[in-house]
């Protein structure tokens, strides 16, 4: 079994409306050293696979096909082996 932790954010250069709102709010609260805030999505996907590269291949395919919109988003992931 593998656990994939997938992180999705807007691409660099794509204005992030939630990120800029959070940044502004934090600034108002006195956190004045914030350079940038990006708000994204986090997913945990459990896969019943034996090989890590197969699991990775599938995660990539899911991200490219469904989980992200490549026009505005980018992703990264960590894949961990877990016991049932």
């Amino acid at each position, binding site marked *: 079994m593998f656990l994939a932790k997938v992180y999705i954010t*807007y691409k660099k250069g*794509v*204005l*992030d*409306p*939630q990120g800029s*709102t959070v940044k502004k709010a934090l600034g108002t609260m006195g956190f004045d050293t914030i350079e940038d805030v990006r708000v994204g999505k986090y997913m945990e996907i459990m896969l019943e696979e034996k090989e890590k590269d197969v699991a990775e291949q599938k995660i990539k395919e899911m991200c490219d096909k*469904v*989980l992200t*919109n490549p*026009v*505005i988003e980018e992703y990264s992931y960590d894949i961990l082996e877990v016991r049932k």
Partner: protein
Amino acid sequence: MKFGVVMFPGSNCDVDCFHVIKEVLKEEVEYIWHKEPLRESKRYDCIILPGGFSYGDYLRPGAIARFSNVMEGIIDFAEKGGLVLGICNGFQVLLEAGLLPGAMKRNKNLRFICDNVFVRVENNTIPFTLKCKKGQVLEIPIAHGDGNYHIDKKTLKEMKENNQIVFRYCDEKGEVSEATNPNGSIDNIAGICNRRGNVLGMMPHPERCSEEILGSADGKLIFDSIMKYLKGE
């Protein structure tokens, strides 16, 4: 003429679209359930993807609906030149399906906006706007949380060259500015078409303003344009 209105789980403007086609245009119309493949034998002249919140907008608006059984047939229908109109969530589905370029982001102010807005007709040469004048200002309601259209600069330039920008948010006189942009959409874009002009996506809801009793009948121009085109007038 025969229209099809697609129903996804969570569509909520399907009945309004159906009503306008049947009662206002007095044309033939059927619902198309999203789980069924689109049958060519039905011979639709125009397919409408209505507004709403297909699959609760989970993941991204339109992202799950895009993989419904019916979509393969709709992509094929569009590629053969069939008329496809996506309104609001329908527009988002068309973007996710790749039938139109770009993507939708959350509104700039993060609010769900339900309001009457003005849009300027930038392209009146496609089947959906034939009866409008170029530069004509239409008053049409919007109701969305994710209408902040995004496209990279290079593609935007190509779209402008190909006359793919169909509607832009403006004031009642037709002036387009930052102040008349409700959602942060790039270049005030409210509606776009594909290169061929047979697929239109728009955030405003023409089906909500196709009868004077509703305050504006400007939306009827879109449906009348479709009829004019289909009848070859």
